[in-house]
Structures are given as structure tokens and as C-alpha cells.
């Protein structure tokens, strides 16, 4: 019998969680997003490279539960190749759908993902204005 794992996660979430893409930092990023609340078991960083308003590279670091790690890895992939406006328009439902559905108890992970994208892009805008 195949072990189902916590919360009956989709295969995609388990895959992402077991072998997440884009783990790490970018040395000279154009933007860094932070969502941090270690006292609630959450600490996330997203690094992005931007060229002509297109996100060309994204990497992340995550302290969090399995669903959070899978979600942030997925988010980092989803924004690669997208324009800043397209990345900002990604909805929580789209993030969940990309993972073949987050369980209801883990939907907050999609919100964290959105917040992280906004935070990184906001940082990049601040940097480019200087």
C-alpha cells in the first residue's frame, strides 16, 4: 500500500516538496521578497532577476511546512518568463490549480505565495527608482 502522506496531498505537491526546483539565492538579484513570521513557523525569501520587465530567474529559501515549501517552489517557477504585471496578476486559485489543488487547510500557502511575489516585485521597483 502506498503511503498517502499528510493531508492527502496531491502527487504534484508531494513531488514539489520532495524535489523542489529553484532552491537557493541569486547573488545580485533585482528584487528580494520576504514573508516572515518565524513565530508562526513561516520564513520565506524569494529572489528575482528582471530584464525588460520580464522575470528571467527566480530562486527561493523557505522555512515552513511541506505545503508551503511545495507552493513557493511552484510560485518561483510560475513567475519565470512572465512580465511583472502578469506575475502580480497570479491568483491564489491559479497557484492552487498549478499544484493540482491545495487542501482547504493549506490554502493559506497560496496567499503566502502571492504575498511573496508582490514583496519581491515591490522591492525591485524600489531598487530601480533609486
Amino acid at each position: 500500500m502506498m503511503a498517502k502522506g499528510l493531508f492527502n496531498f496531491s502527487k504534484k505537491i508531494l513531488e514539489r516538496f520532495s524535489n523542489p526546483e529553484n532552491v537557493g539565492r541569486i547573488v545580485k538579484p533585482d528584487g528580494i521578497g520576504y514573508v516572515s513570521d518565524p513565530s508562526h513557523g513561516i520564513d520565506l525569501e524569494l529572489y528575482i532577476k528582471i530584464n525588460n520587465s520580464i522575470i528571467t530567474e527566480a530562486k527561493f529559501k523557505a522555512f515552513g511546512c511541506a505545503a508551503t515549501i511545495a507552493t513557493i517552489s511552484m510560485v518561483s517557477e510560475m513567475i519565470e518568463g512572465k512580465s511583472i504585471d502578469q506575475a502580480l496578476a497570479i491568483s491564489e486559485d491559479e497557484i492552487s490549480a498549478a499544484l493540482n489543488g491545495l487542501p482547504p487547510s493549506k490554502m493559506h500557502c497560496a496567499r503566502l505565495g502571492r504575498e511573496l511575489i508582490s514583496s519581491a516585485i515591490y522591492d525591485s521597483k524600489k531598487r530601480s527608482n533609486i
Partner: protein
Amino acid sequence: MKRIYLDYAATTPTDPEVAKAMLPYLTKSYGNPSSLHSFGLEAKEAIEEARGSIADSIGARSSEVIFTSGGTEADNLAIKGITFQNKSRGDHIITSSIEHPAAIETCKFLEKRGNRITYLRVDSNGLVDPDEIKKAITNKTILVSIMHANNEVGTIEPIADIAKITKEADIPFHTDAVQTFGHIPVNVKSLGVDLLSVSAHKLYGPKGIGALYVRKGLELTPLFHGGGQENKNRSGTENTASIVGFAKAVDLTIQEIPTETIRLTSLRDLFIKGILEKIDDTRLNGHPQLRLPNNINVSIDYIEGESVMLNLDLEGICVSTGSACSSSEHGPSHVLLAMGLPREQAYGSLRITLGRWTNETHIEYILDSLIKIVTKLRAMSPLVVKVKNIE
């Protein structure tokens, strides 16, 4: 995939011998124990025999054992039953901040309805200080409830010392012995308690059956009203098969305590030594010596317990964590917080509990898996750099 179960504190598999003993009471001797005909009598006799043997095993009389649906009901019956019964005498209950939810939530419920509750602090090992109980007693105190051993960190509380204080003050003393019964000696006389909760499924018995010991002479208000079973303390048709199974499980497990204690303690300490030596920034939670033979609880810095647990699960290893991360409920273990652990460390805790089928190979396998998993998760964690200031 082969699976290794290391969550025996959550529940244990039912011993095949226990299941075998139960079966006739589901299919053949199915009478209602309250019925006066021979079917009823058969069931009644089986229940009384089981009651006698369970009572015997804890040093109690048959008439002092009330069967319940499990540990939670036993705790509820003890705490509410005594509180309701002694309404005219007082309203104050003393408990600890690390009790099982079955006790702590019951106290919170009573608190909302006007009772005063003292939730005693514990030290960094999870120990309750008997002197604190002495200080907390008022002339309105009607109950002291302190668990025998903690279900998360395995710390064994000084129950006999507390009992001396409650006896002197003439206050009923309840202990939740769900984690200790069948694992270390439990005797109501040597512990000196007035009420004691036990459960079958923690000692290779079936789920859905437990018992409350109530010292002779102590009265409590029942929670269930109806046919007056269990000497009017707990109405409802008795769960004959499970009661018989419970007694069988007790018989089998109590015999094993001396040998299992030695075997499990050595496996436990092997694991603790292994993880503390092989993985940096880990620590043991709970008392190093005054500890259940089968309990390991460790904090692993910079990573979150649930993600460790799922990784282990994917490797076929089933353990438990003090961290629950969900939208509705998002908090680390109340036990670890009460022991003074910072929230980040409480989030990185893992509980591994051993049992009858755990062997040295399992310990080595989980250690190897843990090293790989921790390395992988720490590589992802932003906290490693923040705390250690490297890179």
C-alpha cells in the same frame, strides 16, 4: 513500501491475542449485560471478570473501576464529575499547563462556566513542582489533576509526592495515566491517587475503551444518564467485547513491563545519543531520566516539524510532530511552549515513540533518513544563515 511505525504514543496495534479474545463477545456471547437471561449473564460475567483483573493490576478493588469509552471520557468524568459533585464546597481546580487536551480543554470548559482554574507552570524538563501545588491550594480547591507522564515529551511527574500534599489537604487527586499504564508500573496505592484514567489502545488493546479508577467513598456526578450501568456512574450498554479485550491486553502487557522497559530504554537512548551526536543544533525535549522508556522528543533547529514528518512518511517512517500548520489551527505544541522553548524551536519538534515491534535496525534506519532529510531541509531554510551568520 515497507513502513515503520514509530508513533506508539498515538496508538498501538491491537494484539492478535486480544482480537481473538474479543471475537466471541461480538458473535456468540452478544447478550446485553443488563439482561437477566443467560445471554445477558454470560456478558455480565465476562465484564466483571475483566473488571476484576484490571482493578487487580492497578492495586484497586473491582468496585472502584468504571469503564468508559477511553481516556478522554475518563478525564472528563473525573474532572467534571468531581467538580459538579462538589459545587457547594468550592470551585477551584489545580492542574498543569502541559496536560493532555482531554484534561486541559475540560478545565477550560469549566473555567468558562465560572470555575477557577490554576494552570501550574512546569520547569524546562516539563516537571511540575509539588511545592507549587501546596502554594496554589485554597479552601475552595476541590480537585488537583496532574498527568502521570506527559504524552508529548514523556516526562514522568512526581505523582506520589503530590499525593502526600493532596491527602493532607483532603482534596481529591486525579492523574491521567493513559501514557503510563502498561508501560511503567501503575499502582493507585503507591501513587496515592484518588482518581486515575487509563485507556486500552495505548497498550495493544482496542480503541474506544478505557476506565476511570475512583477511590471507594469518593462520589462523582455522572456525565451520562440512563440505565444506570457502571454502578450508576456511567449509563449506556457496556462494550463487552472491548472490555474483555482491554483486560486481555492488560494481562499481556503488564507481564512484559520489566523486560520491555530495559529493551526500549536502551533503544531510546541509542536514538537520542545518535541524533544529538550526528545532527548539529538538536536538543532533547523532556526530562533525560524521569522519562517514559519509549518516548523521544527532539527539536531540530531551522526546520519545521511537519515538513520533516512528511519527508519521513515518504520514506515509510511514521512519527509525530508538535507542530501543526494549517489555516485554522496554526500553533506549536502547548507543552513545549510551557517548558519555555522559543516558538521556532517548538515548531521544529519531532516525537518518536517506540513499541513492541521496534528494533535496532529501525533506529539506525530512521537516524540515517533523518540526517538526509535535515540536510535537505536546512539547505532550503533561510533561518540557517540568519542564525549562524554564514555564507
